[in-house]
């Protein structure tokens, strides 16, 4: 995905890109992705699927996260910020 495009994107647009990824890696076709969503609320969101999610998001948006970036994430809202920051 083009970096400029990501920078211009509204958060809702990014969420709509994340939704199919989350539904896939967390194996839940009805999962509703919101900015406040956390790992604790998704039973299948464990350390393994977390890795799958990170790699899939990196692939989708063409960005790379550092270990520190990943460790510090508290919820989806912070992931959105991180994606935008990495694209900048």
């Amino acid at each position, binding site marked *: 995905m083009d970096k400029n495009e990501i920078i211009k994107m509204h958060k809702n647009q990014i969420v709509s890109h994340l939704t199919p990824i989350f539904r*896939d890696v967390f*194996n839940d076709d009805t999962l509703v992705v919101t900015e406040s969503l956390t790992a604790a609320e998704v039973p299948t969101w464990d*350390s*393994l699927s977390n*890795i*799958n999610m990170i*790699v899939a998001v990196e692939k989708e948006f063409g960005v790379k996260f550092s*270990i520190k970036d*990943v460790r510090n994430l508290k919820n989806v809202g912070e992931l959105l910020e991180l994606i935008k920051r990495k694209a900048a």
Partner: protein
Amino acid sequence: MKHAMLTLDYFALSKEAKALKISSAAKVIRIALLADCATQHLATIMRAIAARNGVQAELYEGNYDGVDLEILDPNSALYAFAPQYVVILLSSEKLKARLYASGDRRTFADETVGRLENLWGAFRAHSQATIIQSTFVLPSERAFGNYELKVADSVGSIFTEINYRLAVKARETKNVLLNDVDFLAAAIGRAQWLDARMWNMAKTPCRLEHVPLLAQSLLDTMFAASGLIVKCVVLDLDNTLWGGVIGDDGLEGIALGEFDEGEAFVGLQKFIRELKRRGIILAVVSKNEHANAVLPFREHPHMALKEEDISVFVANWDNKADNIRLIQKTLNIGFDSLVFLDDNPFERNIVREFLPEVVVPELPEDPSLYLQSLADLNLFETASFSEADVQRADQYREEAQRELTKTHFTDINDYLTSLGMEIRLERFNAFNLPRIAQLIQRSNQFNLMTRRYGEAACEAMMKDPSLAPLTLRLADKFGDYGLISVVILKHAGEALEIDEYLMSCRVLQRGVESFTINNIFAYAARLGAKRVTGHYLPTAKNDMVKGFFKSFGFEKVAEGDGGASKWALAVDDYRVRETFMTPVVNEL
């Protein structure tokens, strides 16, 4: 193996793994994964790829970094799982850590290989399963730069030595196969193989996107070990083995040689010749006049493949699917062990349509890329290699030529005549004794008395004037069968007794028996014997020759215990049988 052609996408496979549709009749393989890295991602992908191949993979994942403990403890869950295959997957990161901590680098390679060898031995003491040992991926950082390998105790040198010595040990050890993870990593690019972040966060053995390649490679080894292997490569000619069309462009016009496309075709041919050396049978199916198709094989200076490398050569204008059916029937192997290489998408699709089991790889447009596109599919996995593999192609060629020649003849006598058979009827001699003794020990089906004389007994027969110990050798225009029959005749007063008669089943139905019995009666007549006698002594395996004497007009004169019977026929009453072979030597 066939599904290697589908894209091996990590996320697609992960998704597939969540809802595997496997028939309850699917073959099950039980795999234990022992590793010093995380195996969960790998296990998931292995299940999905196995399912694509119609196989249900039951996986046991050992405790993280618990390889030694699980193998050494006879009561571990590993043995309770009863695997068919155990994968020992070891990471370079962990090996590096051990090396950095090691007191004496000079003994480190010894210790590492010794440790693994010890684990293999301990495992074998408790399980019959096949061990699949990974190699170590060479680190991509070098403390010495290009000087690394000049220094015996550098990390790069020690890793290289360990991989080499593991390979040597594995050659010597039954039940241990290698999975060359370093090869996989190098093919991708070692710097691209590992994702250091993912290693640090999750101890994944490689980048997630490469997990499918690793999973496929491990499964390929297991599929090969369970017998799912390619046995024959069927080759198109025009624009596959050379550039251009031989029938149109002529011998000088086709592209085959030392540069450009010509060099690419030679490179492919050389790889195919290497496949033949490794025991894969080569066949040709070409839409061509036969005379045109064989011309480059016979006369082009740059052909790496020769006519004798090809076991079955079919050049005609028939449908290729029909021709491949003919080849399958001739070689008597499964369709799923055939690979068909053709540059023409139309032909590939016809074969896929009618023979869905045959493996039909896509070939790129540029012949320079043929070889790499085949290499990427790893179609030629095997779990064994022996001297017999080297010779297999030649044996099949002789047999296939006989079979194909057969199809052209409706009259079996014409066919037998066309074989140009030459037979040698010789007395036992010192040179042949080991082969004679071997044939006597091994022949079960066409063996009338099954007396199992040893080599010493055979040697004594050579000096016994009351005996005529004989061998038969057969050759035809397709090849030499060698020594194929043993007959021992005994002078017994007015009778000539057949004391032992056996023959290799490879030469049935060629009239060798008729030739033999004709000569026995001719010999009996010269001796002045009144009749020829013989016994049929039944065994569990020689039912085939129960009616042998009767078929030559012998009468049953006595019957013994367990179905044993004695037969006799007056010399004057014998009717000479027609034969289709030339006696080159007759020492009777």
